[in-house]
């Protein structure tokens, strides 16, 4: 038995429920000339689902017959293994797997693919599709290498780049692709999908519970469906007064956050300034933890800073009240 996330994943463009305008757009693209695509959106919005539906629309059922193999490349310094998922019509790679050597993958592997023409005449289109996952983590050099390949071999290969945010994709690549934004589903849309699944599984799902799950999912459909399933596993019948179960890490973080604010009463930390200051610190330390290699140091520094800000604010309040006295 597969997870509900996979079981109820739409298989074709017709089955997609939300973003009907986007679906239309994909349909037009599949029927006419098909450019390079750059698909972006938050996680759990349905990027990959849309890509596989698009492929289905392009080539038919055959794209579902997938095989996985490992290709090996040798660079002067070391051997690289990369997993390639492929069907007769398309290939999927995640260059991120090999870290800094991703340029080799782009220059060697992708060029190889791009240089071979589709020979099977029975296939509808004479180009192959290459899907590059996590394109935003491609290094600058490999993005630069991609530029020329994209122009030169346009007749043999079309790329679909899939990423969370195109901020880190260099401008020349971005301007060569057709950008497709996949927004996260709204809470209402999530509720609709959840109740749809409930109906198919013959489960009673009170609206209130559905709402709760949707609220907690942060507009991430995958997370919503997964937590719905785990809730169902746990309780069998879902009553209205159910307690939403956070995942382990969420529980722990909530716990820490509570401890940080423990010595202060709520009205003391509600101020706008405090929130802004803490946010600024959060932005700063999050950035540092991305650059640095040891996350724990930055987390500790952030906690100290947050406590300091809250503490200082409290002192300020006390002083103010003393002044009035």
């Amino acid at each position, binding site marked *: 038995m597969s997870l509900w996330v996979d079981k109820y994943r739409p298989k074709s463009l017709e089955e997609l429920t939300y973003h009907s305008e986007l679906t239309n*757009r994909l349909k*037009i693209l599949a029927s*006419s000339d098909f450019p390079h695509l750059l698909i972006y959106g938050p996680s759990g919005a349905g990027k990959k689902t849309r890509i596989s539906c698009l492929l289905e629309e392009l080539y038919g059922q055959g794209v579902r017959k997938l095989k996985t193999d490992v290709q090996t490349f040798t660079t002067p310094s070391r051997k690289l293994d990369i997993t390639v998922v492929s069907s007769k019509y398309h290939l999927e790679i995640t260059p991120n797997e090999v870290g800094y050597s991703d340029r080799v993958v782009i220059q060697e592997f992708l060029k190889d693919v791009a240089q071979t023409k589709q020979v099977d005449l029975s296939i509808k289109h004479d180009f192959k599709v290459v899907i590059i996952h996590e394109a935003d983590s491609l290094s600058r050099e490999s993005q*630069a290498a991609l530029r*020329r390949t994209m122009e030169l071999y346009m007749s043999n290969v079309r790329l679909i780049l899939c990423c969370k945010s195109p*901020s880190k994709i260099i401008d020349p690549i971005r301007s060569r692709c*057709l950008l497709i*934004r996949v927004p996260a589903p709204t809470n209402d849309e999530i509720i609709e999908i959840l109740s749809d699944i409930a109906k198919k599984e013959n489960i009673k799902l009170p609206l209130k519970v559905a709402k709760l799950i949707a609220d907690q999912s942060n507009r991430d459909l995958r997370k919503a469906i997964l937590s719905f399933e785990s809730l169902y596993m746990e309780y069998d019948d879902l009553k209205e007064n159910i307690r939403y179960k956070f995942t382990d890490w969420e529980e722990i973080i909530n716990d820490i956050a509570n401890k940080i604010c423990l010595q202060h009463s709520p009205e003391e930390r509600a101020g706008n300034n405090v929130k802004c200051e803490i*946010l600024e610190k959060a932005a700063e330390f999050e950035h540092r933890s991305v650059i640095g290699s040891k996350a724990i140091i930055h987390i500790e520094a952030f906690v100290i800073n947050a406590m300091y800000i809250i503490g200082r604010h409290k002192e300020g309040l006390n002083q103010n009240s003393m002044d009035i006295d």
Partner: protein
Amino acid sequence: MSSFFQNKGITYTRSAKVSTSSLPWIEKYRPRSLDNISAQEETLITLRSSKDNLPHMLFYGPPGTGKTSTILALSRELFGPELMKTRVLELNASHERGIDVIRERVKNYARSFIINDINKKGPGFKIIILDEADSLTKDAQEALRRTMEKYSELTRFCLICNQVSCIIPALKSRCTLFRFKNIGTENMRNRLAYICEQEGISYYQETLDELIKGSQGDLRKAITWLNNASKLHINDKVTVETIKETAGIVPDDVINGLIESAASKSYDKIQETVSDVIASGYFAKQIIEQVFFQVLKDLRFNEKHKFNIGERLGIIDKRLADGACELFQVLSLMCTISENMD
């Protein structure tokens, strides 16, 4: 073709073997002769007058102003399409261009003599085009110095870059500098309208306005956007919305919504709005850019406020480039804006 693949990364002129139907418009409508290049009059006059004895050249200017097109058109006029294949070597950033390439390939090419053809067409030198020269390493540029001087009889170099400050002074002093200025609204409009006409595309006037505004003077960007958007509108007119969506531009009301949330001075309101925008998939780099332009136009900000916001923007842009979380960075910018507001 086979010799091209063995050459690992060096292309002898444009050898794109793409059928014309799927050829990107940017290649299809590249100006073929110097007469077709608009807005760069002074450069063209100088180039035309020194056509028979070219100096080393350094072209600089913002992207999409026709630097590469100019040198390609010039070489086409000098050598003709046939001779161009052997007389022009074009290298750009997507090729391996470390110091060894400069030492080996460029040097070898530069010092090779021309075996004169029977018709004796064209001038007696070759051209090496180093496109996107600002991405050449410093070492590679140093290595180029002597090569440029020694073989100047046989080979003329043309360096192309966006920022002239990325080229070392030693190279600068060996070249004639040509500045390429922005193409200008009118010229862009004419070109876009011409392409639409050729491709049989119907459009609204506003569509062209949006293309010109959104691309900020980069004609290449404008043409690619038009190219992409036209694929979605086969039977109807290309709309402003499609251009914006396919180019990744954030709609104005979203940007205004963000600024209004900052004006409310309530942190919770700001967070709600920003989370919503990020969840809609718009990406931070574009958001902060557009927000800043909007701030510049807004009368609620005085000079000092704009200084503060501009400074913060610099920090945030750096952080985004390092790969920091988008939500936090946009929130941080909006908080700064909120603090710096009347």
